[in-house]
């Protein structure tokens, strides 16, 4: 295993040139996740239109793997049904990163963005559910 295998060009590219980096003025869902061991810190925010992810942004700091995977996830999610996160798996994230050979310590970095996205999306779906069912329950 060589560095080139973990640090696929795609990871370095997204780390150097983050896509969808920043914050939104109006959000329908958001979540922040941290990894105290690394000091990795990501926040995902999104707006929803027609049940789909509209605008989506992330912000934070940390290692290349956490930042790149979060950035790539925002691109992947954009335009998809919010419900889609239910199907999103670890394997999808690894595949998106080019299947690098990550040790257990670094897997957490790779999955931090997915965790934030899921927490944010489930939060949104939960509040929608309450809005639709809450009044007569």
């Amino acid at each position, binding site marked *: 295993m060589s*560095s080139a295998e973990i*640090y696929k060009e795609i990871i*370095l590219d997204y780390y150097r040139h983050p896509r969808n980096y920043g914050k939104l003025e109006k959000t329908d869902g958001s979540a922040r996740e941290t990894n105290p061991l*690394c*000091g990795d810190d990501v926040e995902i925010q999104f707006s929803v239109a027609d049940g789909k992810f509209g605008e989506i942004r992330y912000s934070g700091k*940390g290692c*290349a793997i956490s930042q790149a995977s979060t950035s790539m996830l925002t691109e992947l999610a954009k335009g998809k049904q919010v419900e889609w996160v239910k199907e999103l798996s670890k394997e999808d994230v690894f595949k998106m990163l080019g299947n690098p050979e990550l*040790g257990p310590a670094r897997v957490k*970095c790779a999955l931090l963005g997915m965790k934030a996205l899921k927490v944010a999306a489930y939060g949104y779906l939960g509040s929608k559910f309450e809005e639709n069912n809450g009044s007569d329950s």
Partner: protein
Amino acid sequence: MLKSEALNVEKVRADFPILNRKVHGKRLVYLDNAATTQKPNVVIDTLVDYYSRYNANAHRSVHTLGEEATAAFEGARKTVSRFVGASSPEELIFVKGTTDATNLVRFAWAEKNVKRGDTIVTTLMEHHSNIVPWQLVAKKKGAEVKYVGLNKDGTLKMDEFEDAIRESPALVAVTQCSNVLGTINDVARICRLAHEAGAVSLVDGAQSAPHMPVDISKLGTDFFAFSAHKMMGPTGIGALYGRKSLLEGMDPFEGGGDMIKEVHTSGATWNDLPYKFEAGTSNIAGAIGFGSAANYLSEIGMDKVRRHEVELLEYALENLSKVKGMTIYGPEDADQRGGVLSFNLSDVHPHDLATILDERGIAIRSGHHCAQPLMEWLEVPATSRASFYVYNSFDDVDSLKEGLEKANEMFGA
């Protein structure tokens, strides 16, 4: 190739079987010695010898094996107490390590002696094990923890320290050598000032005892804590030195076997020092291995260990500072610091750097090093840290430098 003037590194390296190991097909360059150190054959053999020839409980059995185990265990206590210049072996309590030692002081001394409104003085460069116990005591007793700040170069602000001890603190707890900055504190002076102010002193020796000559009788500290695993010994064993007059006034904080003199249904009387603080069956193998490690280091000579690390540090400070984007923390003068080098490399995150270096067989540490107040002071979430020991060579520093340059290249710096 550059050669150390202090000692024959090749000869030392031959004593450490792990250094022959390949990592990702590369020569192991082990630069994580502040976290834990590698073990020489003599220490490994000592453990095997104990378990294969005279394994028995110490202090309890009168048969041959029991007597041999007790003799070896108490022999190790003598060796280790001599190694750090304690005036008598009864002042040396075997514990699990530095963290266990500071917590012993917390429970057996501080909880009894720290009063409401008291202060406990520590510093911003401490390891969590020399902060959290005091925060807990302070919370329980209504006392306050004061943190002495640092100068830009990572040395202690002695004027702040002097201000802090004007309030007659109950306890002054300071590290002799920072595990992040490498800063060596003048603990002899700190302990003297602490005593003049009526405070009890505790020195964290986790990073000093392994790397430089330590003489507790000259430091004048009341408590001194250190870990075997950071000085070539086994994990799970360490020692707390305590001044006899203080230890005598303290109650044990763990009750059980070995720590009592007599137990009746109506109560118990405490055993003599140091056994009063060693409840239950001790880590006998660990202690014997600890003694063996101390002997090994003494044979090399602690002044030589220190001189070799200063040579490595000078070489590393000079060469690594040339790498593009390097920020090195701590005192600039190698004489004023231990063999610990914390740094950040341009915008390469320490964890990325550690992974890149690992693939080249180089082991460094990345993270907050259990010193988050210090990270806050440095205003970084994490640093990378290379830390040396006697078996490290100038080649190791060269390998590290190449690795750093490679990381720069990958990250486009």
